[in-house]
C-alpha cells in the first residue's frame, strides 16, 4: 500500500507525541510518514506552503487558530488534504461530525480506530462549509481571525483586524486592507453575519469596519438625491451610504460621538 503523508496539528506536545507513536504502531497496516507537526492552525498553514500531506490531524481547541478555522481555510486549497479532527471532549462538535460523516478521533486515540480512519482517509472529502459555520457559535464565538484568499496557487491569509471594508461586485467579494485588495470566495451576507461585531453595513454591497470610519460627508445637491459618503482611514476611497442604511449608520455614529 502506498505511504500516506501526514501532518499533525495540536497545541499540546504530549498529544502530538502520542499520535506519532500510534501512527508507528499501525504502520504495518497503513504505512504513514509524518511530514510535519504544528502547534496551531496558523503554523499548520505555514507548513502547508511547502508540504502537501494526504492527511491532516487537527485538534479543535488551539490558540491563535483553532481547528474549525483551519478547516475553513483549507477548503480554499485547490487540492485540500483529508481532514481528521481530534478532540478530547466536544460533545456538540462530535455529534455534528457524526451527522455529516466527517471523520474525527477522540483523545485518547485507540490504534484500531486510528487505522480505520487512515483507511478511509483517501476517500474523505473536506467537511462541508455549512457544518463548519454551524460549529462556529460554540467553538469560535468571535468568528474567524483571518479571511483566506486563493491566489496563484497560494493561500493568502488576511487578518480580520486589517480589513477596512468588504465590497461585493457582481460575483466576488473584495476585502480592502491598507495595502491592497483581495478577492474572496464568500458571500457578503455570511461575512456580515459572522463578523457582526466588527463590521457595519453601509450599502447593499458594502460592509465597513466600525473602527475604521473617520466620518461622513454629504454628497450632491441639498435636495432629493443627496446622500452620504463614509470616509475610511488609510484609503482615499469614499464609500456610499444607502438611504436605507443611513438611519442605522447615523445612530451608530451618534453612539460613537457621545
Amino acid at each position, binding site marked *: 500500500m502506498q505511504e500516506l503523508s501526514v501532518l499533525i496539528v495540536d*497545541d499540546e506536545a*504530549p498529544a502530538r507525541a*502520542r499520535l506519532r507513536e500510534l501512527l508507528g504502531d499501525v504502520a504495518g497496516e497503513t504505512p504513514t510518514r509524518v511530514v510535519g507537526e504544528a502547534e*496551531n492552525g496558523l503554523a499548520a498553514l505555514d507548513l502547508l506552503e511547502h508540504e502537501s500531506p494526504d492527511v491532516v490531524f487537527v485538534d479543535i*481547541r488551539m*490558540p491563535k487558530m483553532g481547528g474549525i478555522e483551519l478547516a475553513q481555510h483549507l477548503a480554499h486549497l485547490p487540492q485540500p488534504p483529508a481532514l481528521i479532527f481530534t478532540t478530547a471532549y466536544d460533545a456538540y462538535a462530535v455529534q455534528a461530525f457524526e451527522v455529516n460523516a466527517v471523520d474525527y478521533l477522540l483523545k485518547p486515540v485507540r490504534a484500531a480506530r486510528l487505522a480505520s480512519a487512515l483507511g478511509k482517509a483517501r476517500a474523505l472529502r473536506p467537511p462541508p462549509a455549512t457544518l463548519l459555520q454551524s460549529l462556529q457559535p460554540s467553538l469560535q*464565538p468571535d468568528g474567524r481571525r483571518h479571511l483566506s484568499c486563493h491566489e496563484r496557487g497560494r493561500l493568502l491569509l488576511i487578518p480580520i483586524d486589517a480589513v477596512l471594508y468588504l465590497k461585493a461586485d457582481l460575483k466576488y467579494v473584495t476585502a480592502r486592507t491598507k495595502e491592497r485588495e483581495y478577492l474572496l470566495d464568500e458571500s457578503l451576507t455570511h461575512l456580515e453575519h459572522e463578523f457582526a461585531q466588527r463590521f457595519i453595513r453601509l450599502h447593499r454591497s458594502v460592509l465597513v469596519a466600525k473602527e475604521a470610519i473617520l466620518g461622513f460627508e454629504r454628497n450632491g445637491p441639498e435636495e432629493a438625491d443627496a446622500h452620504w459618503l463614509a470616509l475610511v482611514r488609510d484609503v482615499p476611497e469614499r464609500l456610499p451610504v444607502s438611504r436605507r442604511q443611513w438611519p442605522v449608520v447615523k445612530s451608530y455614529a451618534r453612539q460613537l460621538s457621545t
Partner: protein
Amino acid sequence: MASIKQNPAGHRLPDFRNLGVMLRLLLGVNLLALAAALVQVTHLAAWPERYIDLAVWVEPLLLCSLLLLAVLRDLLWRLPYRLAAATVIALVALQAALLHDFWRFMGFAEGGWAAVARAALLAAGCAGAMLAYFHLRAGALSPALAEARLQALTARIRPHFLFNSLNAVLSLIRAEPRRAEHALEELADLFRALMRDHRDLVPLADEIALCRQYLDLEKLRLGDRLHVEWAIDDLPGEMRVPPLMLQPLLENAVYHGIEPSAAPGTVRIRFARRGDELTVELSNPVCPEGAHVAGNRMALANIRERLALYYDLEARLEAREENGTYIVHMVLPCRN
C-alpha cells in the same frame, strides 16, 4: 462543627454566632416592632414616633438576647430541638421580665406583675415568631436539600481536562514510565478528592496539596506555557475550608487564561490571613482571543452559592479585570 451538618441531625436551631443569622434576627424583630407600632397608632403620621418609642424597649432586649444566645449556642445545640426552642423562648421571656424590672427600678416604667408579665409574653411571642421563621427557612434549605444542592454544585472537573490528561499520560508511558506512574498517582488522588463526601470541611493544607497536584497535571500537558507562582505565608494548615473551592477557580484560570494563548502565562495564587479572615487571591492573564466569559461566570456563581450554603453572609467572592489580568478575590471566615 466541621461541616454543614454542624447541627445534630434534625436540629433546626440556627447558628446564633453566624453573622447572617444575627442580621436576620435584627431585621426580623425590628419588622415585628414596626408592625406592632402600626397596629397601635390611629394616624399613619404617628407611626414613626410610635416605632421609636417601642425601639427604646425592643433594642436593648434584642441585643442582650443575641449576646446570650451566641454564648449559649453550643449548649443549646446539645438539647433536642423542642426543648432547645422552649429554652430559647423562656430565656428571652426571663430577660424581658428582668429588663422590665430594671426599667421600673430606674423609674422609667411602672411596676406590677401585670406589666412584667405583658413584657415577658410579648418577648416570648417575638422569639417564638423568629424561631418559627428559622424553622421554616431551615425546612426550605433542609439539611437533605442543602446537602443535595452542595453535592450538585461541587464543581465537577471538566471532561476536557480528564481526557487530555489521560492522553498526556499515555504519551509518557513508553518514553518516561516513571513520570507516567507519578502522573497517574496524582490523577488518582485528584479523583479521590473529587469523589469524596463534599459536605465536610477539609484542612486547608489538603486543599492546597490537591491544587498543586492539579497544576502538576496541567503542566504535564501544557509544558512551558503554564507558570505557577504561590505566595503562602504562615497559614494555619489545620484551618478548615470547604472542599474543592480553590481547584475549580484554578481550573478556570488555566482554561480561560492559559490554554487559549500561544504565549506562556502565569497563574498566581496568594493567601493572606487578616484577623479571623482568610483571603485568597488568584490571578491569570486575560486572553483577548479566548472569550468564553459565560462559562466562567457560571462557575463563579456556582462557587458563590456554595459559599453561601456554608457561611451564609460571612464569605465573599469577587472577580475583576485589571490591566490585562483577571483577579478572583475570595474571603473566608477562619474556623478551626
